[in-house]
């Protein structure tokens, strides 16, 4: 991460922290909160897909597991949402460990098939265990977050905004630290040349297990928060629409860049929401996002953040 990128990221964080002072309506704040949640999921998908080169297409299953963990714990066991949200991270990490063990020694298309099948399996479990999960109807009326008598849904979701921004910030900082650690460098080594990596003492299988588990932690927490925030758990979280949208964030933002998917999450969440409210574009929005993904990848295969970085670099040279 260059100095310019750090400055841009810091400026963006300050601006986002100031947003509630300017944006006072619930709807716009809601879009920001959803963008922060999607950004957290995207940036963690970037860890396994972009940084480690693991074609994990079951990442949204970790999100869904977080959603249902929080929903079931709060409704069936009456556990506090403050505990249910991090519990989503724990169960997602355990699920990641289970799926990582067979995936660790697979290559290419087989990783795609197994992880994709895992996502579908999770959805089928949710649909078939209606007594616990609510089946196709999902679970509703989940408890909201509160501190003492202060409910987070008050004040136009002011508190939810900062919890979501905090979650995204902590997740991004953790991933940036991880990316610059020897572990992060070993992931890039495994991604780019597994034989050479093994010949330098790196256990390729072990790093793949670790990266899947690490990528599931914040994703599961984001899922738990998503359920508590929306007060609903629906099997749609395992569906193609959300997965495609978040994958677009990773690829348009720049796979392996960490920060790229965050900016893409903000841009795409607002763009798809704007299109959803525009006559004629309601159904076409995902096609437009897919077209945007293809266009960006054609112009800059390493994502939009690299176009931006090149612009910053050329600006400095002139």
């Amino acid at each position, binding site marked *: 991460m260059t100095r310019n990128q750090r400055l841009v990221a810091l400026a963006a964080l300050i601006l986002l922290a100031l947003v509630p002072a300017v944006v006072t309506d619930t709807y716009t704040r809601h879009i920001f909160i959803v963008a922060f949640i999607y950004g957290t999921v995207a940036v963690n998908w970037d860890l396994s897909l972009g940084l480690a080169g693991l074609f994990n297409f079951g990442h949204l299953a970790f999100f869904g597991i977080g959603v249902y963990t929080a929903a079931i714990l709060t409704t069936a066991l009456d556990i506090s949402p403050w505990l249910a949200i991090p519990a989503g991270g724990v169960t997602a990490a355990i699920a990641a460990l289970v799926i990582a063990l067979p995936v660790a020694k697979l290559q290419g298309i087989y990783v795609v098939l197994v992880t994709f099948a895992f996502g579908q399996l999770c959805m089928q479990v949710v649909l078939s265990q209606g007594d616990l999960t609510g089946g196709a109807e999902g679970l509703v009326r989940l408890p909201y977050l509160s501190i003492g008598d202060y409910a987070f849904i008050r004040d136009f979701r002011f508190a939810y905004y900062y919890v979501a921004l905090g979650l995204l910030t902590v997740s991004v900082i953790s991933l940036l630290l991880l990316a610059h650690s*020897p572990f992060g*460098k*070993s992931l*890039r*080594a495994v991604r*780019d*040349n597994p*034989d*050479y*990596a*093994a*010949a*330098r*003492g*790196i*256990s*390729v299988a072990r790093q793949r297990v670790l990266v899947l588990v690490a990528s599931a932690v914040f994703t599961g927490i984001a899922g738990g928060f998503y359920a508590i925030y929306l007060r609903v758990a629906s099997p749609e979280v395992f569906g193609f629409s959300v997965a495609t949208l978040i994958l677009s964030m990773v690829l348009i933002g720049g796979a*392996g860049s960490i920060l790229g998917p965050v900016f893409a999450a903000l841009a795409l969440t607002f763009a798809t929401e704007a299109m959803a409210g525009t006559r004629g574009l309601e159904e076409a929005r995902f096609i437009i996002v897919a077209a945007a993904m293809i266009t960006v990848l054609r112009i800059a295969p390493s994502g939009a953040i690299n176009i931006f970085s090149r612009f910053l670099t050329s600006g400095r040279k002139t």
Partner: protein
Amino acid sequence: MPDPILELRGVTKTFGGLTAVDDVSFAVTRGEVFGVAGPNGSGKSTLFNCITGIPFGPTGGEIHFDGTRIDGRRPHAIFRAGLSRTFQKDAEFPDLTARETAALGGHYGGGLRGAELRDAAEEALDLVEFDVVRRDMRTADVSVYGKKQLMIASALASKPSVLMLDEPASGLTRPEIAALDRLLLQVNRTGVTILIIEHVLGLLLSVSQRLLVLNQGSVLTEGDPQEVIRDPRVVEAYLGGAAA
């Protein structure tokens, strides 16, 4: 045989009905430079792969390293034990800098951390004479010779006992081969045992203290390099029956 550090006993590798390495046995003495020659397809690289387990181990036979049997061990464990290798093709981690690449070997292979790791990486880069001003450059932007230097440096950062070089001169110019020749002797003088496969016979004869020739997967002969290359069987293997 005084103090063998690496010993192969009847190593065999088959791919279906094809025997690529056939009952190969030899021992490398601690501190020497041991060369392996042979015409194309003689099984040299397959032999290297069998020893390091990358990407496969042997089908039969035993490999002992520093008194411990290592065949069947996982590749990263073999490296951590002190047996490191380079690759014929310009292997690289394109996103990492030269410093990061060297440090990776020291961290995962040698278990080094912090200042100790930084020092080991710098020492290794110094030993291979990697240009100081290019050390923070992405490996993708480094020259072919630079990538060869880096492969060796990232191995040396882990303080290995044995360095195995798979055709290090491939793709290099004559001045670069001369520099590599000097570099390998320099590395050997630090106490690192070297096992080298090479097609450039000039380099192989210059650095090797003993030479083994493989032909069609089997050991043809082994001994003093100058004597080995005059062996009629070796000449025949390289140039055909008429030449011998």
